[in-house]
């Protein structure tokens, strides 16, 4: 598999504070990667850099072999979709209207939506199980449904990569699992590259192919769930003594001593 994103000697400073220091990473195509780390470790910042929301203070990022600087805004948006941690209120938009906005990178300010666009929008709504809600105002939906509506918008965007910033932090367990399962399934069906910031290590190990961990702005661990789900490594990442049990193949439970 080839590298989708290539990050080399990346550094980000905000004011005097160094948020990220000397990050070298590659994200492979078609892989679901979780970014782990304590609060303030810089994982959301890294995701923002990948989404081009934030320009790095030093270092280089390229997508599919081309440097970030030489990709146009809409061209980039056809490759990479980004879901911010707190999507704003949408002021009366219906689900369908929200999802339709995902076609903007392809149609631009003036292009007409054709039959294909409407099919893609329908497809995205169906994939996220929102058919019954499509004419409801997004603001009136519950947290989990709203999250799915935004993911549907990203799907309609038809990108090859999804960047999700803590997509499940405000959801209950059922919706957390449903959302991650959805992401995982979509990634498989559509061969998407997914990078997702998560706080829950167990869920990350359950649903992701690869775990990458940051600590105070530096890269500390990278590997398959089997490699990372180890009490020693988890202790390095979070700074508290932790233990891990493997209940069944591919299902780990971590706990704090």
């Amino acid at each position: 598999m080839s590298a989708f994103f290539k990050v080399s000697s990346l550094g980000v400073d905000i004011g005097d504070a160094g948020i990220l220091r000397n990050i070298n990473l590659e994200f492979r195509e078609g892989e679901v990667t979780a970014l782990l780390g304590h609060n303030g470790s810089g994982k959301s910042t890294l995701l923002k850099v990948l989404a081009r929301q934030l320009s790095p203070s030093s270092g280089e990022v390229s997508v599919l072999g081309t440097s970030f600087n030489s990709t146009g805004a809409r061209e980039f948006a056809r490759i990479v979709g980004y879901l911010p941690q707190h999507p704003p209120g949408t002021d009366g938009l219906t689900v369908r209207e929200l999802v339709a906005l995902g076609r903007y990178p392809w149609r631009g300010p003036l292009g007409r939506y054709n039959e294909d666009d409407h099919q893609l929008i329908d497809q995205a709504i169906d994939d996220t199980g929102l058919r019954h809600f499509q004419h409801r105002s997004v603001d009136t939906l519950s947290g989990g449904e709203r999250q799915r509506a935004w993911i549907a918008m990203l799907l309609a965007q038809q990108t090859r990569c999804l960047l999700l910033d803590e997509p499940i932090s405000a959801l209950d367990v059922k919706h957390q699992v449903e959302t991650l399962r959805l992401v995982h399934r979509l990634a498989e069906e559509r061969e998407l590259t997914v990078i997702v910031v998560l706080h829950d290590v167990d869920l990350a190990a359950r649903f992701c192919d690869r775990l990458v961990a940051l600590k105070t702005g530096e890269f500390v661990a990278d590997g398959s769930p089997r490699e990372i789900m180890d009490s020693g490594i988890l202790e390095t990442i979070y700074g508290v003594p932790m233990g891990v049990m493997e209940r069944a193949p591919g299902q780990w439970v971590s706990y704090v001593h």
Partner: protein
Amino acid sequence: MYADTSTLPLARPTIPATLPIAAVILWLGALFASATPWLNQLDPIAILSAFWTFNPDQYASVLAHYSWAPRVSIAMLIGCGLGLAGAVTQQILGNPLASPTTLGVEAGGQFGVTVATLFAPGLLAFSPDLAAIGGGLLAIGLVIALTWRLGFSPVTVILAGLVITFFLGAMNMAFLLLKGEWLGNLYIWGAGSLVQNNWGPFMDLWPRVLVLAILMLLLMRPLQLLQLGQASASSLGARVGLIRVLALLLVVLMSTTVVSRVGVVAFIGLAAPVLARLLGARTLGSRLLWSTVMGGGLLLLADTLAHWASTWGDGSLVPTGTTTALIGGPVILLALQGLRNTHHMPGQESSPAGFQPKRRSPVIISGVIVTLLLATIVISMGWSPGLDGWNWTPISQWHEAWVWRGPRLLAATLAGVALGLAGTLIQRMTGNPMGSPEMLGISGGAALVMVMIVLSGLEVGRAGQLGAATLGAAAALGLLILLARKHRFAGNQLLLGGLALYVFMDAGLRLVMASGGTVAAQLLNWMYGSTWLTSENEAFGLMAFIVLICGLLCLVVRPLTLLPLGDTSASALGLPVAKARLLLLLVAAVLTASATVVIGPLSFVGLIAPHLARVLGQQTVGRQMIVAALVGGLLLAAADYLSRIVVYPGQLPAGLLAALVGGVYFLWGLSRHGRA
């Protein structure tokens, strides 16, 4: 699978029927009202045909063709243009209260024309648009610079717009006082008069409005993305900054083109989109469409009202700008009811950038300011220009000079103290660094009563004015309390209520300006804070009062620290939130009213003093209050002294000086923080 689906709507939501019905009623009503005076002279078909032809043998027909029809057409055209511009502005800023008026664009356009009239009349002859566009761009640039780092939260943007409007108004006023003979006509124009006597202006205007409208519509889809917030919009490939700049530029062009031709037609750009939204226009496309339609109808109605008022009144001209402002006030109040969550609006970043506040010793800072204040008092009492140059008045003669210099100086200082305190209270209470008594509308309430007295032609003495102003302030306060009770006296709603009051005051002022004469000059003197009107008794009365209030303030320091944590946290900590807010509100209002009668409603002291105290490193409530009070006193004492000597032997109003200097400081200070 996920929920009970039986209650869910199955079809696309459609526009409620009330919207088109309301629009049709508005248009037909306005058209009919506008045509009524002609009905007994012409038959309906002749009236209708006045838009394209006339009967040269019939005087009424000629009049209708060259006066009535172009006026109706231009009202509709401008109304539509401003309605569209308002809807676009609201979308750009994700702000249901944004409009060309509330962002200061129209005031900027007016300012540009004033400056051009005085200093580059050739430019006006070449193209009236250029000066207005320059002024409008200046205003919106200032507003954006002010709010850049504070996140474009709705209330902050509106307050910054108000500050700019006040500031540019004060500049206009300074020009009027210094070069009044040139600008008399400008003020009738400035108040927005749609009187026409041929089709020329309309023919001139419609292509511009049309082109700008088409350009705005071309930006519709990118504008829609802004609703998703900066992060999502840019991850969809939209250049958010570019879209905002382009769209704002179009808005500025549209509103200033209108301003340069007919003057400030305030609040149509606000009222039309708000109405459209309240009546159920939901998607961007329908909001743009219906705002345009509503704007045309509203302005036609407002213009008809103005026309009627001019005809039925004593023949003096009632500018359309006045009636639009009268419509605008209630609409803001309406919007206020519908505006629940002012802290987090769509498309808005949630976290403003913070900066590490410095702390400094209050003793040293207060010491320095007290020294400066004393020095100002000494200089003000002693060192002054006379007929034979500058000279010192020896201390032995101070008791003789006191009558002339003492009361006004004392009153100015105390007014400054009061405003500093009130400003701190309000900024802490509302958690908004742009809040101030000027903005709360208490000053506006006092001014409104003064305007009404002048308009009614009653002859009241100084005492009568004082009483009336206090009454006005109290009434404004009462209204605010009534309004705010619903929202548990929450800060932002209060500020918006204040905005509505300011709109009414503005309407009255325009009327007085347009009528001109000596009453206007009198009112202007008071409005811009002429301290020389103060008597010795008043000054001492004010002093006793301020001392009393200061004692009371010691009680509220703690609650004031708790309130910004939010209602929930504050009441969880055992603070009776509603009661505490009511008390604070009362104190702030009383302080403001007592200062307003001395210094007028428009000085920036209540806004600047608390801000300056923060910059000087006073971060806790108690310290900020003390230093803000001292700074306020110092500012107005200095302003009073300067107002006496700058154009000696003439006098400038001290409040105007304070507003000019304060406005400049404020802009500079905030831009400096923006860089930090």
